[in-house]
């Protein structure tokens, strides 16, 4: 949710400064996603030079201002303009907090080259309705930013147990609790009520609605939403629609109580009810979405016809418009699960539904609704015509009976009981003692997450700053871990690595095609409902498919030796398996490698050679493996460890910090071959290494010598070295132009450093 700093200040004027606020919020467990200053460019200090009445607009003036660079004419509707005043000019191209973009425009026939701003235009909550006045010494033509109050939009990721902070007042209250003084209060206004009223009536209210109130008011659609509200709503990401809707959103974002506004003239009756929807009942949302409801949905009705999806959103045909003359406002409280199921079932988790899902403060609903209606009457000059309310269901208070000694012990820090009491009281808890240490704690109406001792412990650590709490080491214990299979497996891994093999980690998913190709028993294979990748919706029963894929994924490496120790899955259970794959274009090389491995592991070579699988040509084709010989050895690791036991020897623990890792490029490589004639004393491999080191600047990632020869035609002091150069850029595929450029740079390097002659 987005919060405006100055809006929080409405409720908590001495809020911590913006630069301290982030750490305070994090301490309270509210993750800060971003803090974005409201101040914007394009606002300039200007001095009023001349004021003339507008020829065609009674309430308007044509003001000439000096911006240092020039004198501009601005049309302005403010009263009490005085020459020599320093004011804020919004220049063309500037977007104001309300979302309004300033342009050069013509107002009643007179050109206006910008806008002179009031406090409200700038999103500032000021009681002065006129222009925002800057200090006398504000430099003309400079940015007005330094003279405007610091304000920012704070985006927080609120955890799902804290519905109480999903409003500005709620968050201010949580921040205020850190003072450990008292609970933040607010003076809610009360509107004038009509003498008599019986126009609004209530039908049956479903028990899932714990209370509902309706108010009928007058409405003058010509009255605009106050500029301050427009700025604030816009800054926190809420669209402004019309005054009644904007009021409901402003109140919800201020105090957390969702409200709804209906166009009274579009209601067929004032006989309101709340019931479950009928199966298949049709409903068109105010966003024109056509829905078919089920009994899982709760609806608010007028003469039994749905006018709103309770707690979620209103219907299209009862929404307020620019031609409404009377409005019915509604405030309710519902069983959280009911709204949650209803909204999520239709994939319509609106701001209102989210708050109901996370519990609203039922105790404050009436105060907030009263305040909303008083604001409405103030802003519109209108009045309340009629009201009705259901009998509210009694609110259950959560009571915890416990021992504070246990609580302090759970935290493990030496916190005095008086401090614990003060902290809990600052978040609104009511504490009564039966004796010194046995307490009854009643949580406040806005918190629904405080149920047991652990919940209260969490409150304490939020309020005292968890980073300052005591730390106590665990009691010493005899390590047993080196006796576990993990240790044996890790030692085996080290042994294989020393023999030149590389460990891989693969996905365990295979396709039906692979099962058939490799002759795997499909009946024993576990099947997924949805393929995680491509058409691979089975779990492997052995490592072979995964090993083959890894070989295929490394076509550039001529000799591959890989291994994996990982699980394989079947209807009979899961087992840890070891799989080793050797692939090459040389049968001799492979045989030697296997023999070497078995000898080093002190295993009987001939019996182990017979356990090796040679992969068939049709399997090669399927996996697109280009190396002609692929051999695999695999078996359950248990079996391997039984056959070959190792003494408990040390296992290497890496120094993670000493590794310098670069992310690999995923772009295409390019190859160029270079043949160069150099002195016979040049070491070919040193040459290749030199080129590789120097060549980083021209994206050389690999060099390999593929030919060295001498020819009498070259002279007895010379040799020809042929090198394959591989180029790859990190962020794009290299173009021919770039490669040609690199090649000429390389040729130059060889000429200069090695006196080489390029062939």
């Amino acid at each position, binding site marked *: 949710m987005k919060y405006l700093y100055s809006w929080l200040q409405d409720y908590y004027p001495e809020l911590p400064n913006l630069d301290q606020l982030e750490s305070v919020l*994090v301490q309270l*467990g509210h993750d800060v996603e971003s803090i974005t200053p409201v101040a914007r460019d394009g606002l300039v200090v200007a001095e009023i030079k001349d004021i003339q009445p507008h020829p065609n607009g009674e309430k308007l003036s044509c003001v000439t201002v000096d911006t240092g660079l020039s004198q501009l004419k601005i049309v302005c509707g403010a009263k009490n303009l005085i020459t020599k005043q320093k004011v804020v000019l919004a220049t063309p191209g500037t977007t104001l907090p309300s979302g309004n973009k300033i342009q050069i425009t013509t107002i009643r026939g007179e050109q206006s080259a910008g806008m002179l701003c009031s406090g409200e235009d700038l999103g500032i909550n000021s009681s002065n309705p006129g222009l925002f006045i800057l200090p006398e010494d504000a430099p003309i033509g400079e940015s007005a930013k330094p003279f405007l109050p610091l304000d920012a939009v704070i985006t927080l990721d609120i*955890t*799902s147990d804290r519905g109480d902070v999903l409003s500005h007042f709620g968050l201010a209250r949580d921040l205020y609790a850190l003072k450990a003084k008292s609970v933040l209060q607010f003076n809610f206004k009360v509107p004038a009520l009509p003498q008599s009223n019986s126009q609004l009536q209530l039908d049956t209210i479903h028990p899932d609605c714990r209370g509902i109130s309706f108010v009928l008011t007058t409405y003058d659609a010509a009255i605009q939403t106050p500029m301050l509200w427009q700025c604030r709503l816009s800054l926190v990401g809420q669209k402004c629609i019309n005054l009644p809707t904007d009021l409901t959103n402003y109140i919800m974002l201020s105090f957390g109580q969702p409200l709804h506004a209906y166009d009274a003239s579009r209601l067929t009756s004032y006989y309101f009810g709340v019931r479950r929807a009928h199966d298949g009942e049709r409903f068109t949302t105010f966003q024109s979405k056509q829905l078919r409801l089920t009994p899982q949905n709760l609806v608010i009705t007028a003469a039994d016809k749905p006018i709103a999806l309770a707690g979620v959103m209103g219907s299209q045909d009862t929404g307020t418009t620019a031609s409404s003359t009377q409005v019915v406002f509604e405030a309710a409280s519902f069983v959280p*699960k009911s709204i949650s199921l209803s909204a*999520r079932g239709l994939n319509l988790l609106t701001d209102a539904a989210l708050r109901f899902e996370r519990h609203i403060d039922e105790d404050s609903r009436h105060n907030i609704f009263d305040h909303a209606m008083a604001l409405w009457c103030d802003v519109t000059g209108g009045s309340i015509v009629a009201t009705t309310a259901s009998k509210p269901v009694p609110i259950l208070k959560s009571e915890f009976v416990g021992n504070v000694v246990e609580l302090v*012990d*759970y*935290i*493990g*820090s030496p916190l005095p009981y008086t401090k614990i009491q003060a902290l809990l009281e600052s978040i609104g808890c009511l504490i009564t003692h039966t004796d010194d240490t046995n307490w009854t704690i009643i949580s406040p109406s806005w918190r629904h997450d405080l149920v*047991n001792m*652990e919940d209260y*412990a*969490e409150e304490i*650590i939020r309020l005292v700053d*968890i980073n300052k*709490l005591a*730390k*106590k080491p*665990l009691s010493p*214990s005899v*390590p047993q*871990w*080196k006796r576990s*299979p*993990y240790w044996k497996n*890790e030692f085996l891994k080290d042994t294989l*690595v*020393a*023999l*030149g*093999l*590389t*460990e891989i*980690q693969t*996905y365990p998913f295979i396709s039906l095609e692979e099962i058939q190709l490799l002759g795997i028993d499909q009946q024993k294979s*576990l*099947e*997924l*409902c*949805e393929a*995680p*990748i491509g058409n691979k919706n089975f779990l492997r029963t052995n490592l072979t498919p995964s090993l083959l894929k*890894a070989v295929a*994924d*490394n076509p550039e*490496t001529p000799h*591959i030796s*890989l291994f994996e120790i990982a*699980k394989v*899955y079947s209807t009979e259970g899961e087992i840890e398996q070891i799989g080793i794959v050797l692939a090459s274009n040389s049968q001799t090389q492979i045989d030697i490698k296997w023999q070497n491995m078995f000898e080093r592991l002190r295993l009987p070579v001939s019996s182990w050679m017979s356990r090796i699988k040679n992969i068939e040509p049709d399997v090669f084709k399927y996996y697109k493996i280009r190396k002609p010989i692929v051999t695999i050895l695999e078996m359950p690791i248990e079996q391997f460890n039984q056959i070959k036991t190792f003494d408990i020897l040390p296992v*290497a*623990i*890496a120094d993670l910090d000493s*590794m310098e*890792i*670069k*992310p*690999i490029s995923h772009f295409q490589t390019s190859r160029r071959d270079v043949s160069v004639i150099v002195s016979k004393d040049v070491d070919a491999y040193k040459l290749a290494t030199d080129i590789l080191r120097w060549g980083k600047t021209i994206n050389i990632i690999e060099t390999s010598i593929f030919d060295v020869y001498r020819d009498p035609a070259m002279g007895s002091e010379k040799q020809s070295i042929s090198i394959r150069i591989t180029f790859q850029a990190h962020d794009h595929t290299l173009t021919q132009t770039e490669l040609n450029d690199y090649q000429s740079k390389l040729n130059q390097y060889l000429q200069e450093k090695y006196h080489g002659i390029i062939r």
Partner: protein
Amino acid sequence: MNGVLHPISQIYRVAVATLGDMGFDIISAPDVDTAWNNFESLRLTADHPARLGQKEFSLTNGKLLRTHISNTQMYALNHKQPPLRVMYMGKSYRNEATDASHEIVFNQLECLAIEENLSIANLLSLLDTFTKRLLGQDVVYRFRPHLFPFTEPSIEVDIWHDNTWTEVLGSGMVHPEVLKNIGIDPNRFRGLAFAMGIERLAYIKWNTDIRDFHANKLAFLNQFKDKK
């Protein structure tokens, strides 16, 4: 010429050695498990918002691929009766789109201690020791209160990396309901636990694409060779 130990194994070893030396035994649980062991027993009920963010891969036999390693908590008593200290590691699976920082298969390490007088102070000390062993004594970190359904209170550990705070560990005191589901009397014993995503730590630490760790490209893996 030596081959290479996979970077995931390398990270595991430092983590396992740290916890192993503190008396944590190694246990394991199946990757394919019941919804109860993976979700409900850990208070991730069907309508809990946290569960909605953890989409799983289900199997035709009615089970699922675990979305986190915490299902292993339900198997703790197969190892021994409390007091106990166990750690467990392995693969978890999430049904979500992959990108440079999200994978469908990833490794996690979690540890669980169940003893009579555990406190939040014990958890903070354990997190401090572990974070410093894994990331260096000079690591700048902070504790941050958070929310997990299976722990109360819940705490995340952020490290200061690349000019921003990045979450690396999730932890908390095991919720009494979860202790009950494991088969432990919450009036007698308390539990603490913390978990770490191995690929996550690796891609943050080395500023790579998380998918590189399962792509098995030798060009990438060869960078992790033991330089000695």
